[in-house]
């Protein structure tokens, strides 16, 4: 059975990249991931030198790695969500643009047709007036 951290600080001099495993462990237990990142969570190499000296035999490195991986996964999830949202926005804009363009074409065609029909009518009337037979 693992014991809780007794805050002896033995892990601090053990870290080769000079992180503070004691503080990292405490902040992650509080769920303060941002604080852990500020303490250099991403710099943890996962070498487990802290585990080796922990009298409570805590799986420190595994916890740090899992937290760093969770942060990474969350960043990726957020990035892909951002990308999806942007894709949707651009698609909506394109569809709106296309709809607008299609309306314009129809209106112009209708207008053109209308003008041609009126001209033809006028021409026929003129012809009827000039030649009543």
């Amino acid at each position, binding site marked *: 059975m693992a014991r809780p951290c007794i*805050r*002896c600080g033995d892990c601090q001099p053990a870290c080769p990249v000079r992180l*503070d495993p004691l503080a990292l462990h405490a902040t992650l237990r509080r769920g303060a991931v941002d604080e852990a990142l*500020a303490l*250099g969570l*991403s710099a943890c190499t996962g070498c487990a030198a802290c585990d080796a*000296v922990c*009298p409570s035999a805590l799986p420190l490195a595994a916890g740090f790695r899992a937290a760093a991986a969770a942060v990474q996964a969350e960043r990726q999830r957020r990035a892909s969500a951002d990308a999806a949202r942007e894709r949707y926005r651009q698609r909506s804009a394109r569809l709106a643009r296309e709809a607008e363009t299609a309306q314009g074409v129809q209106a112009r065609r209708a207008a053109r047709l209308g003008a041609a029909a009126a001209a033809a009518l006028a021409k026929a009337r003129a012809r009827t007036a000039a030649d009543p037979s």
Partner: protein
Amino acid sequence: MNLPPWRRIGGREGLRLLALLPGTAATVLLAADAPWPLRLGLALGLAVLVEAALQILRSRHPGAPGRHEDILAALPIALLVALLLPIDTPLWGLAAGVCAALLLGRHAHGGSGQSPFHPAALGVAVALALAPPTATPAAVEPLLALAWAAGGLVLLRLGIVPAAVPVAVLAGALLPGLAAWPGSGGDAMALLQPLADPTLMLLAFFLAGDPASGCHGRAGRWLFGAGVGLLAMLLPAGAGTPAAAVAALLLMNAAAPLLDHALRRGPATPTPPP
């Protein structure tokens, strides 16, 4: 786990107890007519009983791992309470101090290393509040101070006590003397007087030196120690009295997380921005 025995939890506590032995022996021998053996025996016996009872109350079953280690951990705490309390403190005061140390300073926070306050300091504070000392402080015994320092240096050498803290406590205790140095006519003996104070030595190595209730950053440890030493000399309870010593420690214990937070530097390796 291939830790050396004194780095394991039980060994750590056993070593703390062993390191207290030279000073305890000196205390008993230097005051042969005082009832020290009775008081120390009472404190240790009560510690075993109270610790075992508290563990049962916290419903840790008898075979749970770490129980013997926890009982071992209670012993140096009880011994420190008995040693720090003035000899004229009534036995009920001593008993109250030991109980308060283990209940309020240890189990109320979840056991070893979880309390923000040093358990023994808390116990002594409670005992002093319940049974205020009446006699004048004990005479300064340089031999006793030496005996405490001997045990403390073993802890320091084996890395159980972070070296910065006791050094900073003693340096902090010398500061008021240094500030008064020009006016005192340059009396070196008076300047170094605090170093011959057994209570201060006990405070430096065994109370402030406990890493769990102190600061954890490098700069924080120096400031924490210096604060303890300085306050122990300056508090109105009187330089070198147990009351001033434990009050200084408890105050700095309370301030330790703030000190650590304020003095924490960024990580050694820059992290990529999120």
